[in-house]
């Protein structure tokens, strides 16, 4: 007779038998109770309870309550057991709902969004969870039109470029490319794929939920910089923190990054711009913020000076429209012939032709005016 031997433990034991074994240590999970006493086994679910069961009667008693048994079995036998992965996988299926309701939902497939990712969890026979992962905007796409991936480490290569093939140095920028699907992943592979798209987000989200997210605020973060980034320390001059508000408004708004900013100027000094609504937190200024702050530190060492330009009201408004269009990343959306938009290319070219001198100075006014010093 073929089958497992004593030296080859069954890799996939029967859930009810596994529960009976675990009853010796006591089980109390998602409404399921199983314990072993001197008088026999105890089994309980929310609307039924059995006591003093023999070993075989215990197995019989689990019949009819498979949803609870299989649910317990999945979370203790198949799901990855590290705290963060486990919590994330639980969150996906909204674990506060009773098991039967959850199982019904999982049979049809239930979804959660994580940044621009859409996770769909479902159960197969025996209560095992399988997962699909795709771009949230591909929720209704025909799978046949998507490139199918099964290796979760592919995710970190997919995240490198946006839909136009441009490099994405910030993985949590809201510019994730569409057109792919990770199909039928097991729970461990799902966690790996999500972490491939958004590194460390599951761990930091879990730390936050557990109340031990180690936030490093702006001042602390720039204070530890050395080398070419050490100069950013000189930008904090003890004269308020407007500059950090501007940094956060520029770099950390939801339109730029899907992490929710939890760092402030320092422990006692919150910033007065929104931190965003993202699911997962940002625990300290990232390397892009620090690198950009280095440039601003140098620029902001300059003193303001007065320039005089002659512009029509429309031209002043147009310059503002151009800055807005670049800042909002919508230059690609401006239609070729839409000359009502100040950031239209023909409008910008006309303004340059009229108002720039041969050296590129607005209204012929030099940027460096030594006579004014």
């Amino acid at each position: 007779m073929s089958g497992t031997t004593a030296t080859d433990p069954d890799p996939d034991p029967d859930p009810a038998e596994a529960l009976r074994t675990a009853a010796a240590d006591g089980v109390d999970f998602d409404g399921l109770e199983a314990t072993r006493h001197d008088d026999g086994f105890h089994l309980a679910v929310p609307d039924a309870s059995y006591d003093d069961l023999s070993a075989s009667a215990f197995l019989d008693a689990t019949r009819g309550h498979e949803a609870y048994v299989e649910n317990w079995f999945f979370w203790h036998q198949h799901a990855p057991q590290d705290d963060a992965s486990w919590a994330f996988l639980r969150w996906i299926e909204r674990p506060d709902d009773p098991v039967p309701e959850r199982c019904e939902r999982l049979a049809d497939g239930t979804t959660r969004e994580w940044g621009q990712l859409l996770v769909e969890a479902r159960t197969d026979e025996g209560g095992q969870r399988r997962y699909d992962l795709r771009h949230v905007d591909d929720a209704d796409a025909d799978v046949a039109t998507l490139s199918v991936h099964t290796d979760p480490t592919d995710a970190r290569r997919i995240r490198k470029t946006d839909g136009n093939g441009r490099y994405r140095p910030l993985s949590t920028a809201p510019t994730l490319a569409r057109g792919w699907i990770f199909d039928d992943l097991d729970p461990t592979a799902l966690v790996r794929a999500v972490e491939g798209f958004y590194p460390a987000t599951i761990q930091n989200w879990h730390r936050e939920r557990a109340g031990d997210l180690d936030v490093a605020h702006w001042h602390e973060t720039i204070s530890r910089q050395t080398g070419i980034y050490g100069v950013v320390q000189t930008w904090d001059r003890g004269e308020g923190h407007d500059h950090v508000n501007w940094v956060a408004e520029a770099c950390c708004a939801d339109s730029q990054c899907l992490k929710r900013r939890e760092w402030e100027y320092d422990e006692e000094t919150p910033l007065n711009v929104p931190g965003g609504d993202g699911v997962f937190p940002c625990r300290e200024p990232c390397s892009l913020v620090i690198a950009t702050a280095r440039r601003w530190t140098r620029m902001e060492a300059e003193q303001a000076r007065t320039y005089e330009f002659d512009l029509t009201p429309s031209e002043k408004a147009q310059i503002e429209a151009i800055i807005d269009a670049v800042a909002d990343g919508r230059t690609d959306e401006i239609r070729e012939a839409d000359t009502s938009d100040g950031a239209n290319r023909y409008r910008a070219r006309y303004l340059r032709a009229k108002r720039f001198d041969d050296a590129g100075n607005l209204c012929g006014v030099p940027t460096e005016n030594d006579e004014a010093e």
Partner: protein
Amino acid sequence: MSEALLIVAHGSHLNPQSSTPAQDHADALRASGRFDEIREAYWKEEPSFRNALRTVTADEVYVVPLFVSEGYFTEQVIPRELRLDFEAADWDSDGTSADHTTLEPTDVDKRVHYCGPVGTHDAMTDVIVRRAETVTSNDDVGAGVGLAVVGHGTKRNENSAKAIQYHADRIRDRDRFDEVRALFMDEDPEVDDVTDHFESDDVVVVPLFIADGYHTQEDIPEDMGLTDDGRGGYEVPTRIDGHDIWYAGAIGTEPLMADVVLERAADAGADVDAPETPGDGAIDSARADGD
């Protein structure tokens, strides 16, 4: 006790190729099954060094810097950002002999075996020779051929040049190539005048850089006169001043580099025996196609 390998590399905000070697070597090692768990972390990409150790499940983590030389990054930035209480003296290195040290990070409950950079490992010498073989398509390349090992070089860190010189000396001692020189981008002797340093008709030029990018694809090829504009590529070999210059591109992209990463971890005590049938033993045989 489970073990993880964490490859730490520079990465870039501008150049997507910067992290490709770390990803490729991680994939090759993963395919070889030598570690339970393999992760990457970056100075300029994600996960950041600061968030790296929490992405690892294992209790024992072997941290291998994918850097060329000992210096600012290996001695200050990486240990600080990984929250390791590390002093450069812990390595007791002469500038090229950093091995490993065991430390406890402050943000996670793990043991970190912090290794010296791949660039100064002895096995790197073999990678340079392999690179010369692959760029010339000649497994016996050496006789009648000069080899230039090229480094960035910087006056701010003498170890930068030491690593280059170290491997050049070791290759010279093998008496395989007619001539071996250490040349630099930013200090003397400079790679600009590469043909001044060789009598051999054929000169193989191997830059000790981790990733292909501006320095290896534009700076050095243009400085040597291989091309006026590196963005358009260059011929291999290129005829310059009566010499054929075989320019290899960044050493870090060489598949054999994955072996150096593994050696670093093994030196620090990692159990890196291959599982089941080892095949021909070459990690790169299992390598995935890089993008």
